[in-house]
C-alpha cells in the first residue's frame, strides 16, 4: 500500500477545514452565535410614527416566528442604507425586511444582499426592478389617491385653489400618489393648483413650507399632502395662520393622529394604508422562504381605503377596527 506523506495529510486537513467553513457560511439561517436566525428590518426613517409602526410590527412579527430581529434606521439617507446593507451582508443575516429610501438608488443594495444569498422583502416602497427582491409588498398608492381625488372634488367642488405638498422626489410612492390624485382633479379646469412643493414626507418641513406658501397664497381652499405627517404639519401652519376652518386638508397614510382629526372634522380625509398588514406579510414571506418556499409574487399590492368623516369610526390603530390582519384576501 502506498504510504501517505505528511504533505498529503496536511492538504487533506486543510481541504476538510475549508469545506466545513464553506458549509457553515452557506447556512445563512443559522446565527453565528448559535442563537435563533436573525432578520434585519431596514427602515427608510423612524422620524415618522407610521414608519415606526411598520418597523415595530415587522420586528415583533419576526420575533413571534422564532427569529431575532434588529431594526436599522436609514434616516432617509441612501448612504446610511448602503452601510446597513454592508453590515447585514457581512453579519450573515437570514433575511431582510426592507423599506427603501430610493426606488432606483436602493436597487444596488438589494442586489448585493441577493448575491450574498440573503432574501429581501420590500415593504410599502418599491424598487424599480423585478429581479432583485424576492417579493415586494406595496400599497396601491395610485388607486388610493384616485379615490382621494374623487372625494376631494366632492368636498372642494369643481372651482377652487389648492396647494400640493409632495413627499421625497426619489420615491415612487410620491409620484404614484400625486399622479393618482391628478388623474382625477386635473379633469376639472376650475380647480387650480397654485403651488406644488416637496416637504420630504416630514412634518416639521411641511409646517415650514406651508407657512411660507401661505404668505403668497392665503386664499387657497384646500391642501393635498402626500402623507399624513405632512398633513399634520400643514394643519398646524393653517391653525397658526387662523385658516384651519376655511382650508380643507387631505392626507395619506391613515396615521392615528390624522384619523382622530378626521373624526373631529378638522382634516377632510386620508387614505388608509395598512402598515401592519404589509409588515406581517413581509415577515411571514421571509419565514416561508427560510422554510424552503420559493414561489412569491414579485409585487403584492395592498389596497388603500378612503377614510372620511362618514366612515372614520371603522378605522384606527393603523387599520380597520373590524380586521387587524388584512384589508381583504
Amino acid at each position, binding site marked *: 500500500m502506498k504510504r501517505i506523506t505528511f504533505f498529503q495529510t496536511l492538504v487533506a486537513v486543510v481541504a476538510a477545514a475549508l469545506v466545513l467553513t464553506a458549509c457553515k457560511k452557506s447556512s445563512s439561517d443559522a446565527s453565528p452565535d448559535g442563537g435563533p436566525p436573525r432578520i434585519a428590518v431596514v427602515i427608510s426613517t423612524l422620524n415618522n410614527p407610521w414608519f415606526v409602526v411598520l418597523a415595530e410590527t415587522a420586528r415583533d412579527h419576526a420575533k413571534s416566528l422564532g427569529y431575532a430581529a434588529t431594526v436599522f434606521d436609514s434616516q432617509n439617507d441612501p448612504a446610511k442604507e448602503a452601510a446597513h446593507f454592508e453590515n447585514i451582508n457581512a453579519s450573515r443575516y437570514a433575511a431582510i425586511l426592507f423599506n427603501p429610501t430610493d*426606488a432606483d438608488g436602493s436597487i444596488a443594495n438589494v442586489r448585493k444582499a441577493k448575491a450574498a444569498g440573503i432574501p429581501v422583502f420590500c415593504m410599502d416602497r*418599491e424598487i*424599480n*426592478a*423585478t429581479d432583485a427582491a424576492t417579493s415586494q409588498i*406595496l400599497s*396601491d398608492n*395610485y*388607486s388610493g389617491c*384616485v379615490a382621494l*381625488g*374623487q372625494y376631494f372634488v366632492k368636498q372642494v367642488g369643481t372651482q377652487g385653489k389648492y396647494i400640493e405638498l409632495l413627499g421625497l422626489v426619489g420615491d*415612487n410612492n410620491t*409620484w*404614484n400618489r400625486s*399622479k*393618482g390624485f391628478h*388623474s*382625477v382633479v386635473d*379633469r376639472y379646469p376650475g380647480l387650480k393648483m397654485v403651488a406644488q412643493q416637496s416637504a420630504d414626507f416630514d412634518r416639521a418641513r411641511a409646517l415650514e413650507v406651508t407657512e411660507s406658501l401661505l404668505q403668497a397664497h392665503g386664499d387657497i381652499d384646500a391642501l393635498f399632502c402626500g402623507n399624513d405627517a405632512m398633513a399634520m404639519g400643514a394643519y398646524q401652519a393653517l391653525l397658526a395662520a387662523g385658516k384651519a376652518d376655511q382650508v380643507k386638508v387631505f392626507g395619506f397614510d391613515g396615521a392615528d393622529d390624522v384619523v382622530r382629526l378626521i373624526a373631529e372634522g378638522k382634516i377632510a380625509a386620508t387614505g388608509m394604508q*395598512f402598515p401592519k*398588514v404589509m409588515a406581517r*406579510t413581509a415577515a411571514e414571506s421571509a419565514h416561508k422562504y427560510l422554510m424552503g418556499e420559493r414561489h412569491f*409574487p*414579485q*409585487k*403584492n*399590492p*395592498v*389596497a388603500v*381605503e378612503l377614510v372620511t368623516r362618514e366612515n372614520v369610526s371603522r378605522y384606527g390603530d393603523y387599520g380597520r377596527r373590524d380586521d387587524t390582519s*388584512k*384589508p*381583504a*384576501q
Partner: protein
Amino acid sequence: MTPQRHTRWLGWAAAMAVAAMVFWVLPPLRVVRLSATRHQAAGAAFDAEAFVEKFWRDQLLNPDTPALEANRLVQLLRENPAAAAELGRRLGFSRNTSYFIRGAGRVAAVVPDAVSLFLEGDREEVSVVIETGPVFGNAIRDGSGLLDVNLFPNSQDFNAISGALNRRVEAEVLPHLKAQAAVGRRINFIGGVEVGDPAHALPLRVVPVRIEVP
C-alpha cells in the same frame, strides 16, 4: 538640429500620432446636442399611450378575449356573491373584484352623466349603468386580467396604463354612446367593471371598450 534632437522630435510626433489614434477610436468624451439627449430619454421612458394603442387593438377588441356574460354576473351577485367573486380578479390584497363583461340591454334612462340599462333576459330593473362623465379607476386594466403587475418594474408605468385606457374610453367610446343613446334603444357593450362591496354591487358601473347600437 542635431541628429539626437531630431530623433527626440520624431519620438514625440509618433507618440502624439498614437495618442490621436487612440482618442479617435475611443474618445474620452463626446459632445452631443441637448435636444438629442431629451429625445433619447423620452424614448427610454415608458410610453403608456403607445402601449394602450396596441393593447386596445390586439387584445381588448379581439373577439377571442374572454368576457363574462353580464347576465350571469348580475344573477350571481344577487344570489351567490361568493361564487361571483370566484369569477373575478383581485390585485394583491384588495377588497375590489374586477370583471371583464359583455352584454346587451335596453336603455332605461339617459341623464347628463350616465346611461342606464335593463339587461336583456333579466327582470325589469336597472342592473347596468354606463357613466358618460370622466372615467377613473382600473376597471379595464384589472378586469381584463390581461396585464400582470409583476411584469412592470416601475408601478408608475402600470398605473399610467389605466390613465391612458380611461382617456381612450372618453375619446373613442363615450361620444358614440352619448350620440346614440335614447330610451328604449338596444345597446351591446363590452367593458370592465369593479365591484367593491358585493352587497351593493348593483347596478354594475361599466367602463366600456366597445358600444354597438344596432
